[in-house]
């Protein structure tokens, strides 16, 4: 019995990236814990960086990897500020969910 050689094409990586992005997006919509919602955002960012690296390899272009560096920096800054907000929020209301933050609601 002889199997055909299974080639891992870049499209596989792109498909995996979109699966991860979809899981992150659904998690962001479904979960109500602000910390877990934030982790889902990280998941989506990572899916996109995987896509960037894959395109960098497909097109033989170093710019894809440069963009990933900037995405990493922005993700780090975003996590710092976002967790600061979450700490300030949960310190006042330890059981707050995303539904409780309605002060700005018109």
């Amino acid at each position, binding site marked *: 019995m002889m199997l055909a050689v299974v080639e891992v094409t870049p499209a596989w990586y792109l498909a995996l990236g*979109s699966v991860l*992005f979809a899981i992150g997006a659904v*998690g962001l919509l479904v979960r109500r814990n602000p910390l*877990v919602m934030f*982790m889902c955002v990280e998941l989506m960012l990572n899916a996109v960086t995987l896509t960037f690296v894959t395109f960098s390899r497909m097109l033989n272009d170093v*710019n894809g990897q440069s963009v990933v560096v900037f995405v990493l920096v922005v993700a780090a800054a975003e996590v710092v500020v976002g967790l600061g907000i979450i700490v300030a929020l949960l310190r006042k209301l330890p059981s707050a969910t995303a539904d409780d933050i309605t002060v700005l609601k018109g």
Partner: protein
Amino acid sequence: MHLLDGVTPELIVFVLAGAACVAGALGVVLSSNPVHAALSLVGTLFGIAVLFVAQHANFLAAVQVIVYAGAIVVLFLFVIMLLGVDRAEDLSIEPLGGGQRVAAAIVGLGILALPLAAFASVDGEATGARPAVGAANALDRSTPDVAQLGESLFTTYLFAFEVTSVLLVIAVVGAVVLARKVKRAEYVDDPLVEAHLAELAAAAEPAGDEAPVATVEEPVDSEVGG
């Protein structure tokens, strides 16, 4: 050995790392305890780092592990432990009335289907981009990726690179301002706290002949956060 004839090393790496990624992502979304979610996130991040190595992006793989798994997830865990929110929550309650999960599933399937269709349609060339053959930004397999990435960052993207340092300083200042200990007096006329306290007081009163409230109010754990 017959069964392994068609299996290349890259296939094994992809399947293992991809399984780790998807399992970790599902763990983030489905686990009821935030600590478990954060640890599942580590699995996804490591899987992606392995996939970076498989695609010759060695420097980015190292940065991924150091920055994400080493710093960001630890920051998440610090916040979880600091605030004492590491309790399991009930995932079965429907937060925003009926239909939100269905809507989320539809959105997720749409997000999943659109790029998959695009990649499947014309062999991954849906973006119309062409390989950078002979251009200054072309990847060269004979030199290390760190060298090429560094050259790109410090020539083409030098200004953007400098601006990111400003961004990081702003983030640090913002985090210090946001997370500093608030004085007791500032609690008093905070509309968020007042609204929540009023809600709790209303919920604590005997409901009488009122119809049961549709939203499920989570009991406030008063011993947490002290």
